[in-house]
């Protein structure tokens, strides 16, 4: 079960709306390497994880990814509020707008809906942890690409924070994959 904290993990306070940027950044909400896929990947992999420490890492990182999902949602929301109809048409946001108005719906930048096929739960400790490490790098690359497209510091700062977290999570999954953590005396053998 979970507890909700009524604040963002890192502040998002965007003053200038920008529908072009919103259409790119929404990929980290519901796209192939986005935060929704990250959270669902880790939280779903826990049940077949035989080592308690590793399941703990999956729980805590999967939980932090939900906080990141909320941050990306806040960025998209703040980039699309107070838009004029003219701005919506000019920026090409009209295609999204017709289906969702300015609601935040999980999709990739190219318009493809969120899909669980973007992640895997293989039920094998090595396979799952290797997927998790690759996923953190894919998300880091996506944030690097976003940072090349963003000029507004109000948007850059939270994106930079999210990018850094991918690196920390990669490190922790790497440690979870090591002998001294995942093969400790507390491991449960419940295959």
């Amino acid at each position: 079960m979970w507890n909700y904290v009524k604040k963002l993990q890192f502040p998002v306070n965007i003053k200038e709306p920008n529908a072009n940027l919103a259409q790119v950044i929404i990929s980290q909400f519901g796209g192939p390497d986005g935060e929704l896929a990250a959270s669902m990947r880790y939280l779903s992999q826990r049940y077949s994880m035989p080592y308690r420490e590793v399941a703990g890492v999956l729980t805590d990182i999967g939980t932090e990814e939900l906080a990141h999902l909320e941050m990306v949602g806040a960025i998209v929301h703040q980039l699309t509020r107070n838009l004029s109809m003219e701005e919506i048409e000019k920026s090409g946001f009209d295609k999204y707008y017709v289906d969702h108005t300015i609601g935040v719906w999980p999709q990739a930048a190219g318009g493809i809906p969120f899909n669980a096929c973007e992640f895997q739960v293989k039920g094998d400790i090595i396979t799952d942890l290797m997927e998790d490490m690759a996923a953190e790098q894919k998300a880091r690359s996506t944030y690097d690409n976003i940072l090349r497209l963003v000029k507004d510091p109000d948007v850059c700062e939270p994106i930079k924070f999210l990018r850094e977290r991918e690196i920390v999570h990669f490190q922790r999954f790497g440690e979870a994959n090591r002998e001294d953590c995942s093969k400790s005396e507390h491991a449960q053998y419940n295959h």
Partner: protein
Amino acid sequence: MGNKEQMLKDIGIVDFTLTELTLYLDTHPHDRSAMEYFNHYNRIKNQLMKEFAQRFYPLTLDYADSNKEWRWGMAPLPWEGACN
């Protein structure tokens, strides 16, 4: 004793420190000095969360004791952007 924005910023800093320590301890469960850091910052966080709830509104349901109005439900939403 800061204003609301400063207190939220302080809580964010302490909370982030705890998130980092949690992930570190998950893979280094026998590191005593990290556990001491965790306990230290956890005490500060609990104090700040309690003080923030008394002065402004509860950030979690643990601090949501209300009598006149349901302050948990009336608190600002994190994505509004004014003071998160």
